[in-house]
């Protein structure tokens, strides 16, 4: 372990230090200047992003640089996700600005917690040992519980935090049990050692149980059926920007872990676990989409939609091939931006009322905010997977990967369910364009405008010229794919 190793840890160190500084500022008299917190946070994100990009130079030419006794690795895969996380947190910061100003909750601690969550996410993306992954995941989860309950004088927020907390800790107990069994069978928690141990092993009940429990714990984090129960309640109850964060950043981090663990550690038992995950994916797509149809609350609808998207993304893990992994990366990115754009529009509509952003609020939006309405349509089409938006590209990769891997039936379910999903995405389009109504008042602040514009740009760019991101994704995932091929 040298100084060079420590440099690889720089992004995380910066984020942690920055988060701590944000925590101290109010004590030093910054409490009154709550509006400064946003800028401090954005600056921190910028520096972190630079550090992440800088760390790519440290690993240039090398596929993976495990450091700290194989606890932590910087590779193209982790850099991809870390950059995504930083952008998500920065955008969530922008989303939060106006929302926070409506209430008297402290802003500094809020952003500090977001930065800590970012730390946890980055450790998750870089962890190559179950220990690092677990502790990063808990850091993220704990920050999320607190953030979900941040509006502590609102009953819904606290209730959401309580539900999220209890179910989250229970699920992490399940995950831990799985880890302990895997440890017992393989004798190690390092992913590469596990893979090596498994490659010479026959199927084994305890191991399968361990893998399944681990998968169950991760499925909870990505909100896949039947471990999704918390999602709608928490998304509705939590402060809206936090719901945005939970549905994008937190999920993306869980997917980074899911992909790395399953692609690196468990390829040897692909045949055994893929069927279980296939069932989970199919259920997620079906239940998520069908339940979303009858919802009238947009936040709840988005929660169910996010459940279904977890199902689509799982296809990439089930397929266990090059395209699948690329699909996960692309789809995560695409989904994150489309979702953030939608959340921005929701935040724009009404910030006073806590929950109950109903579909009616969107009525006639195209007259009051044509740009927002137009971008909303693009985001919804992207989520629905309609070309030439980004969502289509992502879905194409995932579905084709499933077909390639012999999961044709799953691809068919996915296609049917994306068709069904248009039912409820369309309701918003209908409300915005084809219905007259005053709807809710709109306050379209520059921050929200920026988030919308950025998400729109990404969604369209990935849709129209996907080669660029795809090349990046191939670079980011090739070393994990390499392992698959070697198997």
């Amino acid at each position, binding site marked *: *372990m040298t100084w060079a190793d420590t440099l690889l*840890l720089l992004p995380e160190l910066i984020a*942690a230090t920055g988060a*701590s500084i944000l*925590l101290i500022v109010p004590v030093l008299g910054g409490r009154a200047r709550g509006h400064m917190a946003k800028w401090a946070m954005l600056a921190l994100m910028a520096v972190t992003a630079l550090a992440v990009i800088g760390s790519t130079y440290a690993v240039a030419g090398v596929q993976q640089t495990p450091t*700290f*006794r194989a*606890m*932590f690795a910087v590779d193209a895969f982790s850099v991809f996700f870390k950059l995504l996380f930083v952008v998500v947190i920065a955008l969530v910061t922008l989303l939060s600005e106006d929302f926070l100003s409506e209430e*008297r*909750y*402290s802003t500094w*601690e809020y952003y*500090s*917690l977001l930065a*800590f969550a970012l*730390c*946890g996410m980055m*450790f998750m993306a870089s962890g190559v*040992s179950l*220990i*690092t992954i677990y*502790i*990063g995941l*808990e*850091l993220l989860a*704990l*920050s999320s*519980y*607190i953030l979900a*309950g*941040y509006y*502590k*004088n609102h009953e819904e927020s*606290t209730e959401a*935090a309580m539900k999220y907390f209890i179910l989250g800790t229970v699920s992490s107990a399940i995950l831990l049990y799985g880890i302990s*069994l895997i440890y*017992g*069978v*393989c*004798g190690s928690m390092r992913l590469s050692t596990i893979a090596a*141990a498994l490659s010479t*092993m026959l199927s*084994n*009940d*305890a*191991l*399968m*149980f361990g893998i399944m429990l681990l998968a169950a714990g991760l499925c909870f984090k990505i909100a896949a059926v039947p471990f999704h129960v918390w999602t709608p309640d928490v998304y509705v109850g939590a402060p809206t920007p936090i719901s945005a964060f939970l549905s994008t950043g937190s999920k993306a981090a869980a997917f980074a872990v899911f992909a790395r663990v399953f692609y690196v550690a468990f390829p040897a038992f692909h045949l055994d676990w893929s069927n279980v995950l296939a069932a989970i994916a199919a259920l997620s797509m079906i239940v998520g989409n069908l339940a979303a149809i009858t919802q009238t609350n947009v936040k709840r609808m988005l929660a169910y939609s996010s459940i279904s998207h977890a199902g689509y993304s799982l296809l990439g893990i089930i397929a266990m091939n090059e395209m699948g992994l690329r699909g996960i990366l692309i789809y995560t990115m695409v989904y994150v931006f489309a979702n953030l754009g939608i959340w921005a529009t929701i935040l724009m509509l009404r910030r006073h009322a806590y929950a109950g952003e109903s579909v009616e609020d969107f009525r006639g939006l195209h007259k009051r905010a044509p740009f927002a309405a137009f971008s909303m349509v693009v985001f919804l089409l992207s989520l629905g997977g309609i070309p030439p938006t980004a969502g289509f590209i992502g879905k194409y990769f995932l579905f084709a990967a499933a077909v390639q891997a012999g999961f044709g039936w799953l691809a068919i379910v996915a296609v049917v369910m994306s068709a069904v999903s248009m039912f409820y995405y369309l309701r918003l389009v209908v409300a915005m364009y084809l219905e007259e109504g005053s709807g809710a008042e709109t306050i379209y602040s520059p921050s929200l405008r920026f988030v919308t514009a950025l998400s729109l740009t990404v969604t369209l760019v990935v849709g129209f010229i996907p080669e660029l991101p795809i090349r990046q994704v191939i670079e980011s995932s090739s070393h994990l794919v390499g392992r698959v091929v070697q198997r």
Partner: protein
Amino acid sequence: MDALTASIPLLVFVVVGTIAVASSILVVAMRNPVNSALFLLLTFLCVAVLFVMEGAEFVGAVQVLVYAGGIMVLFLFVVMLINVRALPDDRILSPYWTGGAVVGAAVFVLLVALVRPGVYHEQNDNPLALRSTTVNARHRVVQPDGTTVRKRYTRQQVVGNSEAIGMALYRDYLVPFEVASLFLLVAMVGAILIGKRELGIDDEDVDPQYIVDRVAEEKEMKEAMSA
């Protein structure tokens, strides 16, 4: 005599294990959370004993210190603070108890059926593995040409379980260790943020509703008694 010494650990295991299971059941079965907390404490202590039996002295100590000393106090403190008169578990078994029992039994069967016959990694036969660590050392090597150079090498050294863990924690597991410190910081911040009573400047003088309620209730009671 040998047979007796050999069976002592088994005896301890049976006794301690039974107490652990029994008290854990009582944690669930007790109506009053204070009782539950005390039985939880007992469970924790038993588990600590098991840890020591498994050669994890340090973890056993941490278990006692953190769980028994820290977490339990926290629980008891909160139970006292809230001091709920009408305990929510009037009927201990909720309407879902059948579902709970069935699922619980199913999980148990699963655990027994899958975990017990599992094929695990081969047994380690070095009894000192858990108490030894590697140390870096240098030694002189006389080169063929007569000069001496100092070469680094690592060797296994038997220390104690605590020292071995310490070495591992700060050397092999430095990254997770640091993340854990972040975790504790967040936990502290979070507990304060959420648990602290007043938030805004304006709220400071206002007692929360439950205090007001309780004061009114007690006043009422006093009046009733004096009457």
